[in-house]
C-alpha cells in the first residue's frame, strides 16, 4: 500500500491514542487519561461539525444544541432510573449504555431534522443566526427544566452500565471513547467519498449547477445536518458520562464556538484535523490555565495565526499541500 504523509499521520494518531493510557500510567500521570478522554469526546463533536462546515458549507453556530440534547437524554434517563419514575408517564429510565446512548443519538438526530429542516430554508448569515437562535432557545429551555436541576444542572451518581465493561473505570471508558471516535471518523471518511458525499460537496460548491443537474440540494444538506447532529448527540452522551453531570452549559453557544475553533485550528474539511484541533484546544486550556485564568488572551493569537497562514489548519500544515477534501 502506498504510504502517504497523510496515512502516516493517521496511523501515528491511532497509535498515539492507543498507547497513551499505558504510557501515562507508567509515568504516573493518570490525569492525562481523563484529559484525553475528554479530548476524544470533543473531537467526536468537532468532526461531526466538520461535516457541516467543511463539506456541506453550512455554517452552524448551534452545534452545541445536539451535544446538549445527547447529554440531557443520558441525564434524564438516569434521573428516572434512579427514582424509578416515568418520563412523560410511560418511558422508564435506564442506566444501560446500549439503550441510553442510541436513544441520545436518535433524539439528537430528530432534533437536527427539525432544526435543519427549518434552518435550511435560509442560507448564509441567516442560517448562522437561525441555528444560533435554536440552540439558545434550547439552552433557556434547559435552564427552565426545574425537575432536572434547571440552572444548576443534573448530577449523575455514576456512569451508565455497559455489559462486560466498567465505565467507571478510567481505562475502560477511555477505550470505549477511543473506539466510538474511531468508528465515527472512519464512517465519515467513507461518507465524504460516497455518492452522497460527492453530491453534498457539489451542492456546497455550486448551488446553481447542482440544481441544473437535477439534484434537490436541500435534501442532501438536511441529511448531512442530521448525521452531524447524531454524531454530536453521541459526543453529548459520552460527555455526560465523563463528567457525571449534565448542565445547560452544554447547550450554550459558547460550546458551539469552541467546537468551531477546534475545526478551524485543526483543519476545515479534513475530518482528522478537528481531532488535532480538539486535543490542542484542551491541552492549551489545561496548561495555559495554570498560569492565567485569561488563557484565551494567549490562545486567540495562536488561532489567528493558524487561520491566516494555513489553508487547512494544522493538519494541512502537517500533510503538506493544504490537506485534502475527498479523504
Amino acid at each position, binding site marked *: 500500500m502506498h504510504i502517504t504523509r497523510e496515512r502516516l499521520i493517521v496511523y501515528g494518531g491511532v497509535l498515539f491514542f492507543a498507547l497513551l493510557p499505558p504510557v501515562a500510567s507508567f509515568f504516573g500521570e493518570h490525569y492525562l487519561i481523563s484529559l484525553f478522554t475528554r479530548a476524544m469526546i470533543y473531537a467526536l463533536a468537532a468532526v461531526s461539525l466538520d461535516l457541516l462546515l467543511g463539506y456541506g458549507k453550512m455554517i452552524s453556530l448551534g452545534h452545541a444544541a445536539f451535544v446538549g440534547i445527547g447529554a440531557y437524554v443520558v441525564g434524564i434517563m438516569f434521573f428516572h432510573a434512579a427514582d424509578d419514575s416515568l418520563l412523560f408517564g410511560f418511558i422508564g429510565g435506564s442506566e444501560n449504555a446500549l439503550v441510553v446512548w442510541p436513544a441520545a443519538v436518535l433524539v439528537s438526530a430528530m432534533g437536527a431534522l427539525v432544526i435543519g429542516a427549518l434552518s435550511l430554508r435560509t442560507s448564509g448569515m441567516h442560517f448562522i443566526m437561525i441555528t444560533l437562535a435554536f440552540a439558545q432557545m434550547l439552552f433557556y429551555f434547559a435552564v427552565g427544566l426545574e425537575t432536572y436541576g434547571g440552572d444548576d444542572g443534573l448530577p449523575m451518581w455514576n456512569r451508565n452500565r455497559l455489559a462486560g465493561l466498567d465505565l467507571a473505570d478510567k481505562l475502560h471508558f477511555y477505550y470505549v471513547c477511543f473506539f466510538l471516535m474511531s468508528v465515527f471518523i472512519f464512517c465519515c471518511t467513507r461518507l465524504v467519498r*460516497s455518492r452522497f458525499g460527492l453530491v453534498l460537496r457539489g451542492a456546497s460548491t455550486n448551488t446553481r449547477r447542482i440544481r441544473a443537474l*437535477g439534484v434537490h440540494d436541500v435534501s442532501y444538506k438536511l441529511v448531512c445536518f442530521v448525521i452531524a447532529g447524531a454524531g454530536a448527540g453521541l459526543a453529548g452522551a459520552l460527555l455526560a458520562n465523563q463528567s457525571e453531570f449534565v448542565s445547560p452549559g452544554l447547550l450554550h453557544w459558547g460550546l458551539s464556538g469552541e467546537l468551531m475553533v477546534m475545526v478551524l485550528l485543526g483543519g476545515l474539511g479534513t475530518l482528522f484535523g478537528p481531532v488535532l484541533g480538539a486535543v490542542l484546544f484542551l491541552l492549551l486550556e489545561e496548561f495555559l490555565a495554570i498560569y492565567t485564568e485569561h488563557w484565551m488572551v494567549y490562545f486567540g493569537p495562536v488561532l489567528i495565526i493558524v487561520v491566516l497562514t494555513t489553508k487547512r489548519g494544522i493538519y494541512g500544515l502537517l500533510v503538506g499541500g493544504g490537506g485534502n477534501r475527498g479523504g
Partner: protein
Amino acid sequence: MGAEILAVKRLRKSFGAVRACQDLSFTVQRGVIHALIGPNGAGKTTVANLLSGELRPDGGHIIFAGADITTLKTYQRARIGLARSFQITQVFEELSVAENMALAILANEGGNFRFWHDALCSPVVLERLPLALERVDLVAQQKMAAKHLSHGERRQLEVGMALAGRPTLLILDEPMAGQGPGGTRELSRIIKDLKNEVSILLVEHDMQVVFSLADHITVLVNGACIADGPPEAIRQDAAVQAAYLGRQ
C-alpha cells in the same frame, strides 16, 4: 410524441418596469439546433433562466415534450431531460474534472443516498465516465481541479456535464462568450456532433456561429420575438437587419 420538443406560449416576465420578456412564443423541433439571438439586453438570458426554471414567469406556459413544466422547479426539469449551460460557466470549482463529470452522471441517475461505497467506483460512473470525458476532450485533464482549467476547457467541461445526464433538450446560454477563435472552433465542432443525440436551444450573440450552426432562428428584441424562421430567411428579414444586423 410530436415533432416539437419545446413550446413556449405567451411567456411574460418583468423586472420592475423592465419588460424582459413580452408575450414570447416559439417552438423548438426535435433534433435541430434552434438559435435564439438578439442584441445585448434583448432578454436572451432571461428566457434561458425562465426555461430552466431559475426564474418564474409572470404569465404564459412552457411545454416540454408534451408536458406543461411551467410550475416545475429547476431540479425537476433537469430530471425529465432539460439540461443547460450558463453564460458564466458554472462548474464545481473545488472538485476534480473527473469528479465534476461523475457528479453530473450520478445526479441524473438518482438514488444518491448511498453512504458507503466510493462514488468514483460506482458501476454507472465506471461505465460512462471515460466516454463522457472523451466527448469533450478532457481525458488528459481529468485529475485537475476544475478551477485550474483554462476558460475554454471549463466551458467544455460544463457542456460535457450538461450532456452527461442524457438530456433531450440542451440549452446553451452564450457558449461562445469570452472564447478565443480556437475555443469557438472546438465548441462549434462539439455542438455539431451533438445534433444527432439531442435537440439544442442555442442562446447566442455571435452571429457567425449562429448562421454556421443553426437550423432555425428566433430573433428577440426587447423581450419580444421579431422574426422566426430558417437562417436564409432571417438573413434577409428587413426588421432583423434594422434591429440587429445593421448595427454589426
